[in-house]
């Protein structure tokens, strides 16, 4: 039994607490009475992962065992999550590799010749061969690359198939190879409660035509939060689409959940609670922080992005999507959920160097906004951690840096769209279509390693609920011009930020600090 999550109340004896701030971290003294939300300690992993996977495949939930589904002469498509999961990338061997290898072993034994592997990268960038090899492993890569192991291409009109329309009029269009298969085996990692389940195939293999029905401002404003599927309009849409899909193609879902071991040995102190730091941890903190400050920016970025997380797998479940996902969510909540009583006036977030969309590149301002207002703000169940009209304070340096290879449309979004408005609804009606159909972005998405032209819009919509809910957003240590372009305000220190927040929430606000990473989700009663 691991230690459950904790809500700490800062008192005189509380040491300064760790806050992530882009490619760096710092210690911050919080005002007395601040509530700090810690996740449960890392759960122990499965002792024998391979046996766990084999058991899941042979005794699935709501489905025949996988070996019985495999017949000679059938078309089998194995679909797997792309590099946006998990974060940071998992130390080799990736759990997806181990699952895929066992699935292929069964397929080979059953004499299935027509097998293809497709990465479910939707409108994310194409992965490089090295990134794919890291996910699927050397052996799978050697056997299938490049003809039968591919990135999904959401703009290849011949490679898509309109499967049907939901009762709500939502078009379901996915990868043709997958749609025309006798069996899809979806290999998933569920890192947060938003991932997995009905989302996997319906989103991962979809096209823009299909995605716009749930990736839009209206849906996201009514997803409260999108990490709580029963209360998320987005997930309702996923489920409707999944029902259409299930009629057309058989999906065998394999989902894995991870524990909270996000940082390897040297950085293990980042996973511990500050008052439990040993002398070694303190020394490691000091050394890491100094070294990080002294390193030239390019070296620092490379080092951060070379981090591989020593995740352990807390569970593998296979079978019918709904049955599997229920257990998966249980595992995720067991690892991440901490009960919090009541909302507060101010929510403090430390934003790290990595979001799902900048693996191997710069976290640009739009991704920062998305990580803070989208992902972290929505790490709640029930009610948001901050009251309506409250203030969000987040830490990030927010330099106006972009990776022209991965994020070309983000640059134009930042320079053209955000200079005119920051209102998600206006942006959606005025610009989305233009960017989604711009042939250059389409070309770069298909042939280079660029996110789709419409992707920055989705990042912006991700924060739509938070923008509606919050009274003000203040960024500590941020570039002032960038912050104002995003519609935020910049402050130098936490004290200044709290002072600025005072205009909105009064002189002595209640403050909550969501201590993350590692992943922490609040169950606000």
């Amino acid at each position, binding site marked *: 039994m691991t230690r459950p999550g904790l809500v700490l109340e800062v008192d005189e004896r509380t040491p300064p607490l760790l806050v992530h701030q882009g490619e760096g971290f710092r210690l911050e003294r919080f005002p007395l009475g601040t509530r700090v939300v810690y996740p449960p300690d890392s759960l122990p992993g499965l002792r024998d992962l391979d046996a766990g996977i084999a058991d899941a495949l042979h005794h699935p939930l709501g489905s025949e065992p996988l070996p019985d589904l495999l017949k000679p002469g059938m078309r089998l498509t194995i679909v797997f999550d792309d590099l946006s999961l998990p974060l940071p990338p998992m130390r080799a061997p990736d759990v997806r590799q181990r699952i895929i290898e066992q699935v292929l072993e069964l397929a*080979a034994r059953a004499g299935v010749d027509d097998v293809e592997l497709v990465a479910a990268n939707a409108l994310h960038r194409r992965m490089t061969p090295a990134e794919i090899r890291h996910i699927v492993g050397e052996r799978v890569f050697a056997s299938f690359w490049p003809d039968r192991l591919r990135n999904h291409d959401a703009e290849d009109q011949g490679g898509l198939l309109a499967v049907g329309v939901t009762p709500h009029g939502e078009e379901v269009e996915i990868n043709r190879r997958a749609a025309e298969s006798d069996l899809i085996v979806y290999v998933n990692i569920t890192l947060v409660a938003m991932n997995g389940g009905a989302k996997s195939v319906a989103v991962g293999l979809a096209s823009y035509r299909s995605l716009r029905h749930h990736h839009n401002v209206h849906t996201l404003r009514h997803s409260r939060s999108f990490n709580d599927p029963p209360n998320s309009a987005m997930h309702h849409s996923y489920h409707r689409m999944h029902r259409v899909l299930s009629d057309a193609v058989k999906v065998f879902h394999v989902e894995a959940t991870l524990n909270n071991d996000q940082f390897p040995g040297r950085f293990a102190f980042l996973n511990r609670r500050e008052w439990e730091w040993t002398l070694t941890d303190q020394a490691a903190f000091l050394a890491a922080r100094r070294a990080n400050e002294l390193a030239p920016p390019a070296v620092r970025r490379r080092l951060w992005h070379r981090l591989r997380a020593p995740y352990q797998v807390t569970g593998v479940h296979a079978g019918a999507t709904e049955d599997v996902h229920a257990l998966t969510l249980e595992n995720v909540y067991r690892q991440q959920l901490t009960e919090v009583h009541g909302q507060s006036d101010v929510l403090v977030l430390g934003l790290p160097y990595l979001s799902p969309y900048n693996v191997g590149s710069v976290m640009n301002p739009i991704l920062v906004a998305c990580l803070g207002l989208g992902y972290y703000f929505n790490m709640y169940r029930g009610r948001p951690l901050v009251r309506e009209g409250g203030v969000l304070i987040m830490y990030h340096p927010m330099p106006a840096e972009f990776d022209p290879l991965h994020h070309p449309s983000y640059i134009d979004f930042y320079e053209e769209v955000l200079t005119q408005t920051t209102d998600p609804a206006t942006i959606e009606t005025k610009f989305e279509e233009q960017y989604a159909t711009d042939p250059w972005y389409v070309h770069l998405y298909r042939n280079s390693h660029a996110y789709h032209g419409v992707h920055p819009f989705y990042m912006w919509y991700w924060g739509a609920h938070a923008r509606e809910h919050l009274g003000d957003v203040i960024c500590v240590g941020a570039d002032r011009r960038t912050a104002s372009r995003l519609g935020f305000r910049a402050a130098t220190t936490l004290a200044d930020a709290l002072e600025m927040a005072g205009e909105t929430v009064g002189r002595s606000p209640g403050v909550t600090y969501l201590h993350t990473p590692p992943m922490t989700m609040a169950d606000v009663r």
Partner: protein
Amino acid sequence: MRLSEEIRALRRGRAPVTRSAEPWVPRPRPRPFPTDWARTPAASAARVIVRDLGLRTLTWTSTRPRVHGADLLAGIDGPVVFAANHASHLDTPLILGSLPPRLRRDVAVGAAADYFFDARWRAAATALAFNAFPIDRNGTGRPLDLAARLLRDGWHVLLYPEGTRSRDGWMRRFRLGAAVLCTDLGVPAVPVVVRGTYQAMPRGGHWPRPGRPAVTVRYGRPVAPREGESVREFGARLEDAVGRLWVEHDEGWWNALRAPVPRLTPRGPAAAPWRRIWESTRPVPVARRRVWPR
């Protein structure tokens, strides 16, 4: 003319021949790259350094080679043909490095003329480092003349009868060149099987995978052509011998002896390409101590 003007005029020294003065030149016949120089004593001495000190050290530090059956080579006293399977550029340095120095000194390696002998620098380097000689795989002319001459001169010859590196880790059907040489000249052939090099450094790789992958070289008993045996019969016998070594690697000597048509086993399953690669890249189980050494 002033000196400077004369110099300027002469700087056109590389001007093309005037059209009306162009001499008639017969079209030169493509000649194989000459490699005799690589078998002079001086080149042999240089080769000892390049091959035995350089390449062998490099190969032995970046992989974990195991050698079986080298004792069977003790009885060799005349020129022989080494016939090996081929999956990787690692094969040649491994075989040469694992031969006893007495034989290694006198081995010439047959190398694809279109791959190794197309650029002069690469041809010279290959000839020097491996004592390689060109074999025209497209079979125009008489590709084996040079090999026959070398055998008559007392050199051993290393050939890859498959003719190319494997694409999926499995062996392909042998071509008959090696068998022709043996039956024509009456020299025995030594079957050789190299395993693990496909996983260590497949086609397209330029360096062995990190982590010192395990590779194995396995020599078999020399096979000599019998009186009145046809090339085809001898070829099949040689392929069987190689196949038996392949099976011996996986299942042991006893099982190899009982294999019905051993030359078919290394050809792999008749299935989709992915399954062939999938099988040939199956990780090697951790070695157990055997009660009966092979």
